[in-house]
């Protein structure tokens, strides 16, 4: 696993660039990750990100878009507005979590 530097901190990532160590994540790092995929984080983005982090702790896997809607209460349409084109992957990336595995 490569180690890269984000916000002056060493961060372990996989070959695609997704973080692999839950506790290495910080809000500062999330801001940099978001900027790298051209997203400027608003308070609503943060609500989604904090839901995803908490949900991962409970479920042991990354939330899909469906789960983020039904359990988190963030409508799919809004997810596409906040994290355009590939919401599920972008949300996980910024939240420092692996790509979601679920099909739906």
């Amino acid at each position, binding site marked *: 696993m490569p180690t890269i530097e984000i916000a002056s901190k060493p961060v372990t990532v996989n070959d695609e660039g997704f973080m692999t160590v839950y506790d290495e994540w910080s809000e500062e790092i999330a801001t940099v990750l978001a900027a790298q995929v051209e997203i400027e984080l608003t308070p609503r983005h943060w609500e989604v990100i904090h839901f995803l982090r908490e949900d991962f702790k409970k479920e042991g896997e990354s939330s899909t878009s469906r789960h983020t809607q039904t359990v988190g209460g963030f409508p799919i349409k809004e997810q596409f507005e906040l994290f355009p*084109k590939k919401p599920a992957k972008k949300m996980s990336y910024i939240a420092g979590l692996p790509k979601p595995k679920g099909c739906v």
Partner: protein
Amino acid sequence: MTTPAIVPNFGAEDTGRKLAIICSKGNLDMAYPGLILGNAALGEGIETHLFFTFWGFDMIIKSRMNDLQFSPAGNTAMHLPGTDAHIPQSVMPVPGMTAMATHMLKKQLEDLNIPEVPDFLEQIVAAGGHLWACRLSADMNKVEETDLRDDVEGIISASDFIEMTEGAQLLFI
């Protein structure tokens, strides 16, 4: 020691990839492949069109879309979940078999948090997907636009569909 930043490729460059899925089956089990793949494509930022034709029309007719059924008759690949055991084809036509199989399939899907068909279509539309109905099927079924889900964008002819999906990848289900 650190390596330079690695940023996932989220397809910032627009490849113009387009997917068109023709849904021609109205059995519950055959409704899902198109929905799952269409939904996945939308989640990858791909422009996605679903075209409903023939038996697939039951997926978008308001009075029928909640009652799609699954019959194990003629399906020799159906096993009791988690086993290799078959129910013999000869007992498939008994009364109540379709209802029981439908109930079992719905339960399995629900356990995996897969939405029911109408709900799944709503999610697909929310994700930017487009729903189209086939003109010939509408005429055959004596169905008007008002009988269809409100989010169906139109009843179109086969040639309209071919024109609209120029350059798209096509899936026939």
